[in-house]
């Protein structure tokens, strides 16, 4: 690695460069230590919504229903951003919000009979992929330095 000098190992983290340890810690960080009740509730709502959606779809779903679904997904994503502490999970919640918007776009495309929105969805997916690349790089970089992906640890800058 050429840029080693940019990443001086933190004190108190003598083995911060051990890839295995990093992976283990990352896995521990990503795995929820306990499932927050709120998220469980949200997940349940989501599940119900999907089921209801499928059922309704059989009965000739309207565009409005898809829009409501997308709103629900968007809300779940936004809610997740507020309650989760892990940067990766936060990021996944944001992806959820983007995809909620995608659903809305596709639904509206169907409603108006204008397929332009399908192209928009493709663009959004590409952009989201780029965002993942940059986002993961940032998260990994900070994780290497601090040994944690908990966003609540990042409070040096405040007030």
């Amino acid at each position, binding site marked *: 690695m*050429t840029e080693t000098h940019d*990443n001086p190992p933190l004190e108190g983290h003598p083995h911060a460069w051990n890839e295995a340890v990093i992976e283990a810690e990352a896995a521990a960080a990503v795995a929820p230590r306990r499932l927050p009740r709120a998220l469980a509730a949200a997940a349940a709502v989501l599940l119900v919504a999907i089921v209801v959606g499928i059922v309704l779809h059989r009965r000739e779903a309207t565009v409005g229903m898809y*829009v409501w679904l997308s709103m629900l997904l968007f809300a779940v994503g936004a809610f997740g951003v507020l309650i989760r502490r892990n940067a990766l999970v936060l990021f996944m919640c944001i992806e959820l919000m983007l995809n909620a918007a995608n659903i809305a776009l596709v639904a509206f495309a169907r409603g108006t009979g204008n397929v332009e929105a399908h192209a928009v969805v493709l663009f959004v997916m590409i952009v989201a992929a780029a965002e993942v690349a940059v986002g993961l790089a*940032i998260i990994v970089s900070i994780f290497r330095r601090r040994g944690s992906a908990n966003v609540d640890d990042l409070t040096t800058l405040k007030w």
Partner: protein
Amino acid sequence: MPVVQHWTVLLPELALVGGAIFLLLIDAAKPSQRGPHLAFITLVAVVTSGVLAFFQWSHPTTSALGGMVVGDKFGVFARFIILGAGFLATLTAPAYLHRRGLDRAEFYALLLLSTAGMTLLAVSSDLVMVFITIELLSLALYVMAGFERGRLESQEASMKYFLLGAFASAFLLYGIAFVFGGTGTTNLLRIRAETSLGGVADFRLVGLAVALLAVGLGFKAAMVPFHMWTPDAYQGAPTPVTAFMAGGTKAAAFAALLRVLVLSVPELRWDWQGPLAALTVLTVVFASIIAVSQTDVKRMLAYSSISHAGFVAIAVVAASRSGIAAALVYLLVYTAMTIGAFGCVMLFRDGDGERVHLAKYSGLGVRRPAAAALFAFFLFSLAGIPPTGGFWAKWYVFFAAIRSHHAWLAIVAVGASVIAAFFYVRVAVVMFMQEPPEGDEMELDSSVGLKIALALCLLVVVAVGVAPGFFLHLAEKALPFGG
């Protein structure tokens, strides 16, 4: 609607992207190369782009990419502000990066890509383009904000900026989806047609959409309550990046906000003017008050940039020709004086680092009178004290607000600027009225690029101060979509 389609509208952006690709290629050919030639290539790309944009000034309005991008005078004016920010940031960056061992080709490539994103945003005439360009400029800025990987603040700034930026983009995208649902299109001019008399727009959806778009663009422009990333990101990011973000992003975001709000949904004016005015008041008052108790100069300048977003937003609320012109002049002056102020922070070295704490500025006016006077000049301009350019910028904005019957907004803003004057002037007082500490020689950064950049900023602020009418006249010609 501009009928003429021509790809040459995109030439300035092609120059920027070309520069970025060239930088990446030479970096691939000879990895990890450093040195001033990288900055020079960047400057060449920016200047080329500026020259190409300049030729569009006299052209009639054209569009490209099937109406997703428009080449109008408004775009040229906004591009010039953005390219100016890029140019100045490139001038200030090499010395700063060199001292920290970070002067690598990626930085300049990212800077160029981000600039390209900003200029494209300023000429977007389609919401999809707005989304993509915002992502383009943001993704580059996220990385640039965290470029100083050895410093925790820089990483933290990057992380916060990234998470919140992505969060806000989701709102923007959702807004775009609703616009599409409400009007069946994402093209700004067609949205305008659909929301006008005889259109088929669903106004409930469009209303929701405008609210969500305002969230996304308000985030980029740093308006309260979508501003909270700003102080942290500005304080943590490397100072050249901060200067660039403060200047360029704001100009691009407001250019887009003007196009979206004032041009594509003018019929909904009575609906969005009220809430936007509320956000504006919140922005100027809140930011000015919080800035009062800041002791970190970079963070103080960050709050100052938030309050300036409020002032530009006043011109957006005015939603008139004079409002658009006032906003452009304001952005021009604001960019010059803000980059000037951040440049001065870079100028005042403290050992190997910068002088960021206010207490470290005491006696600077005694030891380095010329540099301190320059900083004070930029601060006075930011405070809007006549006869600086900042004064005229505020003057035109207030005038536009009064003409569109928003005098109360101007009055509130004047009150807030009185509060703001306090913390600007306080820095000058600390510099000139307090004794310098013993043994602190207060060396200045000797970088030539930084000095040139500061001179250019000074030139712009003084020029607008001396001949504001000239710039206003230019800005009045620069109406979006050719009027």
